[in-house]
């Protein structure tokens, strides 16, 4: 049976039902949390942190990465579910090697999200950040980065040639585009034509560009199907 010959109704309706449940639960919950925080701020107990555009963007990306990473890890925990995702035609259970590969991929994404969110959250909660907390956060980030690099190398080794090709393309396109874009911005900044960017702004832009370009390459190479 081909994918196109399957009726989309059950999958579509279950997705719609899940979206509806999330909306029904999430909307009032968000409203109540917001109202509670506003009340705390009015009472002077809590002050809402002032976040720059790059902080908001970093938190959005972090949530996205954490969400996708968590879903990948959850799916890879069930070899039957993972098997259906990998091979919708056959639907055989995934092998333990495949499950570990996808779990590691999910872990890499979740770690990236955690690392992206940590500096923003620490700064938002404790401003100014005490040197001890800042140092501890930095050491934690360094440790997480080392774990992520090791995981990325393992994922690269276990990947097949299309996956490696796609990874190389994403890296190359991101480098070339950002090299030009950041040079132009830096030149404009030096000439007093453009506002000053911090390294955090640049890092967030780089992460955004990487994820957008990854999406395009994955779609073009048919890795999403």
């Amino acid at each position, binding site marked *: 049976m081909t994918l196109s010959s399957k009726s989309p109704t059950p999958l579509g309706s279950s997705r719609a039902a899940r979206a509806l449940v999330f909306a029904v639960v999430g909307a009032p919950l968000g409203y109540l949390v917001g109202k509670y925080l506003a009340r705390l701020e009015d009472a002077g107990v809590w002050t809402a942190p002032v976040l720059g555009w790059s902080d908001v963007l970093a938190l959005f990306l972090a949530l996205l990465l954490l969400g996708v990473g968590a879903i990948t890890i959850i799916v890879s925990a069930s070899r039957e579910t993972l098997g259906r995702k*990998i*091979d919708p*035609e*056959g639907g*055989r259970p995934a092998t333990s090697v495949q499950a570990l590969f996808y779990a590691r991929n999910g872990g890499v994404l979740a770690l990236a999200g955690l690392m992206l969110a940590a500096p923003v959250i620490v700064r938002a909660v404790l401003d100014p950040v005490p040197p001890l907390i800042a140092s501890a956060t930095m050491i934690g980030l360094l440790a997480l980065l080392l774990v992520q690099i090791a995981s990325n190398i393992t994922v690269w080794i276990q990947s*097949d*040639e*299309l*996956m490696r*090709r796609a990874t190389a393309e994403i890296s190359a396109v991101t480098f070339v585009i950002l090299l030009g874009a950041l040079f132009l911005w830096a030149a404009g900044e030096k000439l007093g034509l453009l506002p000053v960017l911090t390294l955090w702004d640049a890092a967030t832009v780089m992460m955004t560009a990487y994820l957008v370009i990854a999406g395009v390459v994955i779609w*073009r*190479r*048919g*890795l999403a*199907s």
Partner: protein
Amino acid sequence: MKNRLKVLRAERDWSQADLAEKLQVSRQTINALETGKYDPSLPLAFKIARLFGQSIETIFQDEA
């Protein structure tokens, strides 16, 4: 580059996952090869040719 991978696979009644397993690549790679979104490396092309018992030229045709 065009290829006859889908036909050859169908003749043997193999799914994309079956072929992927035999070639030790992911199912997505087979899908990308069949839909022309990816041209294989030379080692993979040789592997495919050996698996189907045909020459590379009979499986892959240059569109130019």
